[in-house]
């Protein structure tokens, strides 16, 4: 359900930036989503269709860029991709690791005319 709130925030942000840039129409939104953000792209797409209606972003496409979950080992400093919830350093097998990416949720850019 949180996609509704997130999509509304995205629409507000996009319209705001488009207005600042003096755009007449938003053509595409480059959206960056981390795997861990728990945001489902299809839902964002669906809500966007409804929420952008009658705005200059109506009909814009969304290009999703997914960022993998990455962690850094606190023992040997190796940075690795966390796959299948394997929270273990592949180098030294330590479980002492910190998240370094995967929580992204931002608009990288918008294409306008």
């Amino acid at each position, binding site marked *: 359900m949180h996609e509704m*709130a*997130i999509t509304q925030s995205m629409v507000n942000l996009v319209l705001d930036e488009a207005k600042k840039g003096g755009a007449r129409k938003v053509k595409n939104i480059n959206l960056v989503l981390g795997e861990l953000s728990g945001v489902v792209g299809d839902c964002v797409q669906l809500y966007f269709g409804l929420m952008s209606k009658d705005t200059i972003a109506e009909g814009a496409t969304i290009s999703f860029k997914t960022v993998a979950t990455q962690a850094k080992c606190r023992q040997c400093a190796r940075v690795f991709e966390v796959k299948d919830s394997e929270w273990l350093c592949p180098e030294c097998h330590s479980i*002492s690791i910190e998240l370094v990416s995967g929580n992204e949720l931002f608009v990288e850019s918008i294409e306008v005319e």
Partner: protein
Amino acid sequence: MEIKVLKDILSANDQIAERNRALLDSKKVTVFNIMSSPGSGKTSLILETIRALKKKVRIGVIEGDIASSIDAQKVGEEKVPVVQINTGGECHLEAGQVGRALESLPLDRIDLLLIENVGNLVCPGEFKLGEDKKVLILSVPEGDDKVHKYPLLFSMADAIVISKIDLLPYARFDIPAFLKAVKGLNPKARVLKVSCTTHEGIEEWAEWVISAMRR
């Protein structure tokens, strides 16, 4: 034409959270954002906290639920100021809702504000409310394997409370394995064990609450 944006989608929420934070700072109110799955015992822990600390600390509560005011009524019986937020379907609280709730609380007469988030281990982690500390509750029947299933919340919690420890004889919950997983992902988190039924561990929890408050 391309316009570089590079802005977090939740930056609007974050700004409101900052405003809440500034207001609460000026009133010297400490705020905990209490998160867990539904039924882990957020309300029970809040009630126990009030009962344990009522004489020392002036507590206020914000109750977040999708619907109903059942929790606010329970808390209200303890004679502390409480505001219920019904999100009407949204699975988490947002800073704006908390900001509006703050307007109806007597902040000059509150030292500690406990915000009970909507029961959910995913989304509440994304939305800052203006809190000082994030408290995460995991109950024994939920199992010890949740740290790596919900890594975001477990990695950001200041305190992790294992609740319903009176059920340990009946449910499989490997405490050493859980502590090891927490230590790996979030070594700074304080882990506490409580039972709101037998009151075991409540004293230690209350001590942590006091230690986490602003001086």
